């Protein structure tokens, strides 16, 4: 899923400077799961904004709402009546949510309350970790189901660099070396021979490097 966390409240308060009618919009999907932008976080943020406005003597009305998925127009459309009369929208969705709202309501400014971080998974209570960088050409079949693009700090494709030690990455002793994990997994699977092959230069054009990407399913288009 998409993992995000909330911006520092002072940064969000600064974004509200000069606005009187504010709507905070939550998203019930990924950001609810990662405890960053669901209905509960919206309520906390909204009251924080009210308190801040009061403390600085500003006349501000902060409203709250939440929708099923901010990343889909059909769900965002349901916001029409709530948005009416607002002069600022704060999205606690991921970056896609913010942009979907901006596209649907071009006449009202929308600002992000979250920093969208990565595609990852909840490792344990309160900890989320990156697992994919959406490179557009998955190679997990060759690497024991562990992604070197996202889990090696240098996105290397042919094994661990010289900095790998005790299973940890050279950049930080708290970070697992992705390639060490791959090595151990392939060893356990009896497939170490995979690593003797040279993985050729990657085609990054399916990744961000090919410009903004688009997926078209002709068979599904109307």
């Amino acid at each position, binding site marked *: 899923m998409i993992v995000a966390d909330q911006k520092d409240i002072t940064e969000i308060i600064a974004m509200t400077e000069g606005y009187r009618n504010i709507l905070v919009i939550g998203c019930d999907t990924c950001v609810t799961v990662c405890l960053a932008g669901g209905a509960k976080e919206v309520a906390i943020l909204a009251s924080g904004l009210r308190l801040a406005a009061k403390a600085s003597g500003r006349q501000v009305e902060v409203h709250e709402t939440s929708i099923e998925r901010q990343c889909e127009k059909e769900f965002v459309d349901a916001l029409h009546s709530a948005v009416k009369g607002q002069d600022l929208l704060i999205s606690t969705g991921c970056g896609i949510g913010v942009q979907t709202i901006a596209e649907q309501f071009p006449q009202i400014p929308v600002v992000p309350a979250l920093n969208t971080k990565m595609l990852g998974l909840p490792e344990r209570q309160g900890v989320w970790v990156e697992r994919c960088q959406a490179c557009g050409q998955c190679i997990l079949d060759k690497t024991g189901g562990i992604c070197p693009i996202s889990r090696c700090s240098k996105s*290397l494709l042919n094994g*661990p660099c010289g900095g*790998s030690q005790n299973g940890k990455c050279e*950049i930080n002793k708290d970070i697992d070396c992705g390639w060490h994990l791959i090595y151990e997994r392939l060893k356990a699977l009896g497939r*170490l021979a995979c690593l003797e092959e040279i993985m050729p*230069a990657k085609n990054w054009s399916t990744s961000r490097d090919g410009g903004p990407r688009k997926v078209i399913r002709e068979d599904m288009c109307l």
Partner: protein
Amino acid sequence: MKAGSRLEQLLTRGEFVATAELGPPKSADIQLIKRKAEILRGFADAVNITDNQTAIVRVSSVAAGKIALDEGLEPIIQMTCRDRNRLAMQADILGAYVLGLRNLLCLSGDHQSFGNHPQSKNVYDLDSIQLVQMFKNMRDEKVFQCGEEIRNTKKSEIMEPRMFLGVAANPFGDPFEFRVVRLAKKIKAGADFVQTQCIFDLPKFKRWMQMVVDQGLHEKVYILAGIMPIKSPKVLQYMKNNVAGMSIPDELIRRMEGAKDAKAEGVRICVELIQQAREIPGVRGVHIMAVEWEEIVPTIVKDAGLWPRPQVG
């Protein structure tokens, strides 16, 4: 001959070679490059010109290499995957070649989080193995990475850059067993010579070399053992704690601590390591990495009995 560099000639002739390192300045100080070149001239068969070493901005390795070349040294241009994509790398190797540079060392590079621009965007378009492969194909197949021939127009002559290609190997990184596999991959990709990470843990290095020799890899590539002179026990301790992929025995730290003149002891250790490394089957030379201590290289080379250096025809 693949590139005809002095380094290649000496290695093919069977000489025990000595390479050193020249770190370009962190400013536009051309005199510093010349001063370091002056110190090293005559004491090293070739000199590595580091590429934004430890991810700190410095004079580019190609530019500093050209100055070193003009000062009578034979440079080995280092190139990391961190700072350039495949276009820039191929442009730089063409550039290095037309300037007369003939040796190239391909590295992944330290992650930028160690350097003076931790907020930068890294590249890692290729990894070091893919980098060697690309340069080997440029030299031997005369094609760019994309497969196009290296010539200006369909009718013009092919003019490929011919470089003697080096790689680094760290016998002390983990997983240990994979280190030899990785070296084999680098050789398969086209490495002509290898410089190892600096050796302090001789027994571990010997174990690694044994695995290398068992697989016959020492016959496919020239292996130069990395040696680093240490000025004080503090430096050694610091490296043990903070530099990833290093193996430093406590006994060595104690020896440095016990010494009256730590610098002199550092040189003695260095000389001993060179002599011991020389006895290990498969080792074809040493690479002396005197980081920001280039002045000591002549002493080490002389004390290790490696001076004068052989001439080429």
